[in-house]
C-alpha cells in the first residue's frame, strides 16, 4: 500500500501536529513500511472472533456517588502556562 502526502497531512491535522516538508516525507516512508508490515494481519482468518479490548474479563468497576473532595486551586494552576483569576487562559478559539 502507498500512503499519499495528503493522507499524511490529513492524519497530522487530526492529531494536531504541524509537519514540515521533511517530516512529511519521512513519515510517509515510515508509515508505508510499517503499515506494509501490518498487512500480515490480513492473512489471519478472524471470522467470528471477538476483539479483545481488555486483557482480563473485568466488569462493573464502579464507585459510590460520594464526594471525595477537590484539589486546591493552586494545584490546578500550578502547571498552567497561563491563567487569570482562576481561569486557564488560551489563545482565542477561532472557527
Amino acid at each position: 500500500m502507498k500512503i499519499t502526502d495528503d493522507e499524511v497531512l490529513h492524519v497530522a491535522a487530526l492529531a494536531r501536529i504541524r509537519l514540515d516538508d521533511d517530516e512529511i516525507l519521512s513519515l510517509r516512508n515510515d508509515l508505508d513500511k510499517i503499515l506494509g508490515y501490518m498487512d500480515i494481519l490480513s492473512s489471519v482468518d478472524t471470522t467470528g472472533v471477538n476483539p479483545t479490548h481488555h486483557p482480563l474479563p473485568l466488569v462493573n468497576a464502579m464507585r459510590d456517588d460520594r464526594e471525595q473532595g477537590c484539589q486546591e486551586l493552586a494545584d490546578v494552576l500550578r502547571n498552567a502556562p497561563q491563567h487569570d483569576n482562576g481561569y486557564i487562559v488560551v489563545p482565542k478559539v477561532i472557527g
Partner: protein
Amino acid sequence: MKAYDAVIGLEVHAQLLTSTKIFCGCSTKAGLPPNTSTCPVCTGMPGVLPVLNRKVVDFGIMLGLATGSRIAPRCIFARKNYFYPDLPKGYQITQYEHPLCEGGSILIETAQGVKRIGITRIHMEEDAGKTIHDEKAPLSYVDYNRSGVPLLEIVSEPDITSTDEAVAYLRELRQILMYLGICDGNMEEGSFRCDANVSVKPAGSARYGTRTELKNMNSFRNVQRALQYEIERHIEIIESGGEVVQETLLWDPSRGVTVSMRSKEESHDYRYFPEPDLVPVEIDSAWIDSVRSALPELPFARRERFIGQYGLPAYDAGVLTQTKAVADYYEECVRLLDRPKEISNWIMTEVMRALNEQGIPITELIVSPEMLTGLIALIDKGSISGSMAKEVFAEMVDTGESAGGIIEKKGIGQINDEEELRSLAREIIDAHPDEAHKYRSGKTGLLGFFVGMLMKATRGEANPKLASRIMKELLEE
C-alpha cells in the same frame, strides 16, 4: 408551491443530579468559583484514570425504563477524540457501540392525537468544561468545574415532523426527567440542552433531504423559532434550485437566524474506540428490578390516576401533575385529609399564587401538607370562614405558623363549643334573674339582650347562630 415535509431528529443532553461527577469524586455543584470543583481526574492530568459513578448508571436505567427502552445487558464506554480547550483529555468519554439503552419511545399529544416518538438510544457521557471568549483580547478562558458532570444523551428517531411536535417532545422528555428526579430541566442554565437535525423533503417522498445540525437553542421558544427558520431556509434553497449544505449551524436568538459554525471544511473524524481505562458494565435483571421498584409514577399515568382515584376534573389532574413535587404535595395532603377536590382548589389557587409570588418550588414552601390540611379541616368544622382562612393562609406563608396558632394568637375564629357556650349562658341567666323571669313570662324580645350578653362575654367570637339557639333553649327550659 410544492408542499414539503420536515424531518426533525433531536439530541438532548441532560445533566444528571448526582452529587459527584461521572468519573471522579468532585462535586457537581454549579456556580462555584472557576476551577475549584476539580481534581487531577477531571482536569485530565497525566496518569489519572476514570472510575464510573454507579448512580449515573442507575439514572440511565431509570430513564430507559421510563421510555420503554431496552436496557443493554452489557454496555461499554468509548472515547470520542477531538481537540477543544474545555475537553481536558483530548477525548470525551462517551458510549458509541453498545449504549446503555436502545429502542424506546415517548408519547406526545398533538393536534391529531397521541403520537409515539421513537428514541434511538440513551447513553452516558461526561460533560466538558466551559470556555468564555474574551470580547477585547484574543484570548479564551477555561473553567473545568463542569468537566465530568454526568450527562445522558437522548437521541430521537427522525419521527418529528413539525416544530410543535419537537417542542411537545422536549416538554414531555423534560417532564419525565424531572419526575424521575434525575435532571433539574433548566434549559437556560444548560442542564437540559437540545441539538436538532433538520431536513425537508417533498411531501410524500421517501428520500430524506440533506440535513443540517442546529445548536444553541436554550429555550423552548428558541427551539421553535430556530427550527421554523431552518425549515423555511431549506425550502427556500430547494425552491430556488439550490442545494442544502450539510453543516453545523448556531442559532442566533438576537438576530433570529442560523449561522454556520465551522468556517473550514474541518473533518470531524472522531476516531471512536472502546475506552481501555473502563471495563464493561453488565446489568442483570436484579439491578433493573431494583431500579424499577424505586421508579416513580410517570406524568401521563399519574394524570389518569388522579382523575380516577380522586374524582378530579381532567383540568385539575393536569395542573396538579405538572411537576412531581406538586403532585407529591397534593397526594400527601389527600392522605392527611380526605377532601380531594377542596385540596385541589386550594393548591391550584392560594398555594400556586404563593409559589409564584415567592418564585419558589413547592418543596421550599414553608406551609407543609400537614399545615395546609390543618387549615382546611378548620374550615370544614366551621371554626373559621372561607374568607378568614385565606387571610390565615397568607399569614402561614409569611410566618410558618400553624393555622390553629395564628387563630389563637389573633383571637380570631368562632367559638363553636356548645358546652362552653352553654355554661357561659347559664352564668349570664343566673346573673340576670329579673330579665330571665320577664322572658319566661312572655317578654321573648329579651332574647336579643341575652344573646348580646353572651357575645360580649366571648368578645364576639361565639358562633352567633349557636349562641342564639343555646340561649333560647336555656331560657325556655
